[in-house]
C-alpha cells in the first residue's frame, strides 16, 4: 500500500459514503418519528434516480452531447431537483398508503415492516414495468471524469466533487431545518414523545408526513447523484438501501449526525478494505464492521438520540 492508493480509495470512499449518508438520513428520520424501519426507502432512492433521468431527458434529449461546464452544472441542479421531488412524492405516497392506515388501526410493528416490504416489491416492479428493465445511462452532457484538483498525484474528478459537495450542503441544510425551524422542532417533539407532542398542539400526522417528505427529498437527490455516477435501473435501490440502513444503525439509529457519520465511515471502510483484501470481500467487510461495532456499542457509535437536536 502506498500513499497514492490510500488517497485514491479515500476519495472513492468519501464519494460513496456521502451517498450512503444521504440515504441513511431517510431511514434515521423516519425511525425517529415512527420507531420503524422504512424498508421501502430504497425504492424512494430508485424513484429519485428515475425522476432525475426523466427530467434530464425531457429537457435536453436522450442523446445530448457535452456542454460547457456552467450550463451543465445548471442542468445538474435541475436534475437533482427533479430527483428530489420524485423521491419526496414517492415517500409521501408511501406514508399515505402503506403506513398511515396501519397506524390508524394500531397494527403490530412487524405489520409495518411487511407493508413496507410489499410497497417496495410493488414500486420496484412498477418502475421496471413502466421504465424498462435494462440499466439506463444519463446523457453525456457533462464530463464526469474531468479532473478538478489534485491531492498528491491523485486527481479528484468532477462527479466526485459534485457528489461530496452537494451531499455536505444537503446535510448542513437538514441539520439547520431540524435544529432551527418550527417543523424541526415538531419532528424532534414527535420523536421524543408522540402523545405528549400531540397534547402540546403538534399535528402528528402532518409532522410524520413531512418527515417522510424530507427523507424523500434527500433520498431522491442521492438517487439522482448515484444514477449520474453509475446507472439507473429498477433494482438499483436494494444494495445501497441495505448498506445505508446499516450505516444508520452504525451511527445510532434515530440520530441524525450519527447517520451522517455512519454513512461516511461505511463508505470509507469499504474502500479502504480494498487495499488489504480482495475486492469481492468488501460487502462482507461492511457487515463485519457493523456487527463488531454493535457488539461493543450496542446502540451505535453516537448512540440513539431520539428527538434531541441532531
Amino acid at each position, binding site marked *: 500500500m502506498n500513499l497514492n492508493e490510500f488517497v485514491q480509495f479515500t476519495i472513492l470512499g468519501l464519494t460513496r459514503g456521502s451517498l450512503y449518508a444521504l440515504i441513511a438520513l431517510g431511514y434515521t428520520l423516519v425511525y425517529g418519528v415512527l*420507531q420503524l*424501519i422504512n424498508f421501502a426507502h430504497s425504492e424512494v432512492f430508485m424513484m429519485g434516480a*428515475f425522476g432525475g*433521468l426523466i427530467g434530464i*431527458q425531457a429537457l435536453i434529449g*436522450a442523446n445530448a452531447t457535452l456542454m460547457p461546464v456552467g450550463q451543465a452544472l445548471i442542468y445538474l441542479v435541475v436534475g437533482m431537483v427533479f430527483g428530489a421531488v420524485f423521491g419526496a412524492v414517492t415517500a409521501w405516497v408511501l406514508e399515505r*398508503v*402503506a403506513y398511515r*392506515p*396501519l*397506524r*390508524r*388501526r*394500531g*397494527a*403490530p*410493528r*412487524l*405489520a409495518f*415492516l*411487511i*407493508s413496507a*416490504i*410489499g*410497497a*417496495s*416489491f*410493488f414500486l420496484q*416492479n*412498477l418502475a421496471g*414495468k*413502466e*421504465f*424498462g*428493465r*435494462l440499466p439506463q445511462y444519463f446523457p453525456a452532457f457533462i464530463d464526469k471524469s474531468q479532473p478538478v484538483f489534485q491531492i498528491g498525484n491523485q486527481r479528484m474528478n468532477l462527479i466526485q466533487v459534485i457528489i461530496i459537495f452537494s451531499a455536505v450542503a444537503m446535510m448542513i441544510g437538514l441539520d439547520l431545518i431540524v435544529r432551527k425551524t418550527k417543523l424541526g422542532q415538531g419532528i424532534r417533539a*414527535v420523536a421524543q414523545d408522540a*402523545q405528549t407532542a*400531540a397534547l402540546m*398542539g*403538534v*399535528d*402528528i*400526522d*402532518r409532522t*410524520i408526513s413531512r418527515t417522510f417528505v424530507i427523507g424523500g427529498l434527500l433520498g431522491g437527490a442521492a438517487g439522482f447523484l448515484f444514477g449520474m455516477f453509475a446507472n439507473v435501473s429498477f433494482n438499483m435501490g436494494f444494495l445501497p438501501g441495505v448498506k445505508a440502513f*446499516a450505516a444508520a*444503525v452504525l451511527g445510532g439509529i434515530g440520530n441524525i449526525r450519527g447517520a451522517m457519520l455512519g454513512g461516511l465511515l461505511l463508505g470509507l471502510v469499504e474502500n479502504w478494505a480494498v487495499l488489504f483484501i480482495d475486492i*469481492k*470481500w468488501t*460487502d*462482507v467487510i461492511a*457487515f*463485519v464492521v*457493523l*456487527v463488531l461495532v*454493535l*457488539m461493543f456499542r*450496542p*446502540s451505535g457509535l453516537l448512540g440513539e438520540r431520539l428527538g434531541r437536536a441532531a
Partner: protein
Amino acid sequence: MTFAAGGGSVGRRDAWYHKPDVRRLGASLGVGLVLALVTGKDGRSGHFGSGIAAALGGVRVPSFLAVGLALWGVATGINRYGDEMRRALAPATAARKRVTGNATFRTTSLLVMLVVAIGIPPMLSSFWQGVLVEQVGIFMLLAVGLNVVVGWAGLLDLGYIAFYAIGAYTTAYFTGTLPVQPPIVLNPFLCFPLAVLACLLAGVLLGAPTLRLRGDYLAIVTLGFGEIVRIVANNSDGITNGSRGATNIPHFSIHLLGINYDWTLNSLPYWYLIMVVLAVVVLLFFRLEHSRIGRAWAAVREDEVAAQASGVATVKIKLLAFAIGASTSGLAGVIYASKIGFISPDNFLLILSISVLAYVVFGGMGSLFGVMVGAALLTWLPQFLRDYVPATDRNLYIGAILVLMMIFRPAGLLPARRRRTELSLHDIPEAETVAVPAPGSMGGSI
C-alpha cells in the same frame, strides 16, 4: 381533529376536499388508475412515457375510472351500512363461531386437511408436484421455524435463510459433493441430525453476542449475518466451490432391515417426506407453545424488562428460540439440497429471508396453523399467476397483496388468539376518540 396546530388554520381542515366521502372517492379513483397502470403494457427503456401512455390510452382510462367509482360505491356502502349489515348477520356469525370453536369441528377439519394433503398430490401434474415440494413444503417448514423466532420470541430475524444455507451446505459436505471431502460419505438421511447440529451451533454462535441487542439492531445484525454466509459461500472456491455450487447431491434412500427405497427425481415421495418432517416439527412446537418455555417467550416478547424481573433468563430463552428456529431451517435445507441435487449461493439470497418473514406475518405471526397457510398461499400464488400474468409482473401483484393485507388485516390471515385479543383491545379506545391520531400507541409488541 379539532385542535389542529402547527401551521394550518381550522378552516382548511373543514374544506370540501377533506370530507370523508370525497377523500374516499379520490382514493378509489387512484386505485382505479393504479390498476390501469399495473395491468397495462410494459414500457420500453428510454421511452419513459410509452408504458404509461399505453396503459392509460384509449378507453382504458374511463373504464378503470369506472372500476374506481364502483370501488368507491362499495366502500361508501360498507361505511354507511356496515354496522347494520354486521348486526343483521350477527346470528350467523355467532353460529359460525360456535361451530369453528368446537373441538370436534377442529379435529374433523384437521383430518380432512390430512386426507387432502395425502390424497390430492398424486393426482396433480408433475409440475405442480414439484411446486408442492420445492416451494410450498420447504417454505412451510421454514415459516414454522421462523415463527418460533419472530412470532413467539419476538426477535426480528432478517438473516434466517443463512441457516437454511448452512443446512444445505452441510448436506453437500457430508454427501461428498463439495471440493473438501468429509471423513465419511453419508446418506442424506443421516445429514438431518448433522445439519440440525450445525445450525444449532451457528444459531448459538450468532445469537450469543447479538441477542443482547434490541429489536431493530438485531434485525440488521442478522441481515448482515445472512449476507456474510452467502458471500463466504460464494467466494470460498476451495471449500464451497464458489458460485458454481455443489452438484449431484444424492437423493434420499433407505437401505435398512430389508427395506430398500430410493427417492428419485419424482417429487411425490419428497412431498410425503416433508409432510412427515413437518408433522413431527409441528407436533413438537405445538407442545412447546404452551409449555414453560413458550410462556417465557411470550413474556420476553411482550415486555423484556418485566420478564427479566420475573425471573426469566431472557438471554438464554432468546438463544433457545434462535437455535430452535435455526435448526428447523436446517432440516428444510437438507431436504432442498437432496431434492434439487444442486445448490449454489444464489439459492440463498436476502430476498428469501424477507419472503419467509412476509409469509409468517401474512399468515399470522404466532399462529402455527396461520404461518403454514400463509407460506402455502404465498408460494402457490406466484405459480398460479404464472398462467395469467407475465412472469416479470408477478412480484408487482404480490407486493400489492402484502400491502392490502396489512392495511385490512394487520394481524395476518389467521391470527394467533393472543394477538387477536390484543388488537381488539386496541380498537375500543380508538373507536371512541376517532379524531385523535395516536401513533405513540403502536409500539406494543414487536
